[in-house]
């Protein structure tokens, strides 16, 4: 007897991720899941984006996922954003439960929450952490075939960030090749080229993130200061 089931495996993680997503939506938080190989510059990119977003009046916080150490959380806090470190003690990716626990440790939900995943292009691709956008980073020295080798990571991403453009002279990285491969699994993939050394491309990426947030939540809470409520003048009777 054949029993038809059709049930998602990893359904438990998906349920937790869906609950997180509802929480973020209610709070007006754009959650951004940042994934890449180790050393592509995820933390450096956050260090650059934090002041740029704050300059635009957007509040930012960061969840840092690492196998060990609290180095990254310290770096991000020095850049001006509250950070919560998740130390996975060996686990190669963040899952929705870990992120939910980290969110409870945040004093308050920001307008943009970066979730810096563990450096790894394989497993983080399979675990939804309730994000609204996924950013995948590749850096020039890694080679332009990363999207060909790790298509899973790019399939669900909103944007690919090509980082370390300042090293272009020493690397044979063909942007067109990386973009073509990324878009073959994700035709809508946006592409940004950044350098955390020079700051090149950071403003464009920050602008894109702000636009994604506005798309979801409108302009509310975006301005630095709320315009003072104008009192309606009492009507004069004739």
């Amino acid at each position: 007897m054949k029993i038809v089931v059709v049930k998602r495996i990893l359904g438990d993680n998906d349920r937790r991720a869906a609950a997180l997503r509802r929480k973020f939506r209610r709070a007006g938080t754009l959650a951004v899941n940042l994934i890449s190989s180790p050393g592509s510059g995820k933390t450096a990119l956050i260090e650059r984006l934090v002041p740029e977003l704050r300059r635009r009046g957007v509040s930012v916080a960061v969840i840092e996922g690492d196998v060990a150490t609290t180095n990254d959380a310290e770096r991000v806090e020095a850049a001006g954003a509250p950070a919560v470190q998740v130390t996975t003690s060996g686990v190669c990716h963040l899952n929705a439960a870990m992120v939910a626990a980290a969110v409870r440790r945040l004093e308050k939900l920001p307008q943009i929450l970066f979730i810096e995943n563990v450096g790894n292009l394989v497993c983080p691709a399979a675990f939804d952490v309730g994000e609204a956008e996924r950013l995948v980073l590749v850096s020039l020295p890694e080679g332009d075939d990363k999207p060909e080798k790790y298509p899973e990571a790019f399939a669900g991403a909103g944007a690919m960030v090509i980082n370390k453009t300042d090293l272009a002279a020493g690397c044979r990285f063909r942007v067109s090749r990386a973009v073509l491969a990324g878009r073959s699994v994700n035709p809508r993939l946006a592409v940004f080229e950044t350098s955390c050394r020079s700051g090149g491309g950071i403003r464009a990426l920050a602008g894109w993130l702000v636009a994604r947030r506005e798309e979801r939540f409108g302009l509310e809470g975006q301005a630095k200061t709320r315009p003072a409520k104008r009192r309606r003048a009492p009507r004069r009777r004739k």
Partner: protein
Amino acid sequence: VEIEVGELSGAVPELLAELYPLASEGTPLEGSRLLVRRVAVRFECRCCGQGFGRRRDPGCPQCGSTNVDLSCGREIRLTSIDVEEGEGAGR
């Protein structure tokens, strides 16, 4: 036990088959067989509705739009369980 594994799901059918006997040991599924069906990547165009597979040129082959959704290829799903009649009678 039949499952579907998308080409872009990150799960490896060979490893699933290898580890399934270990994972099911001591459970009611011990001794059962895992059947893995691979699911290829499919896109669906939001503009013209055309469905198509993975190709070198990104975008819809019919209208050229890049406004397309991944319709399958990332799933890991349990689709059916085949049980011999009478087996579960004691339940």
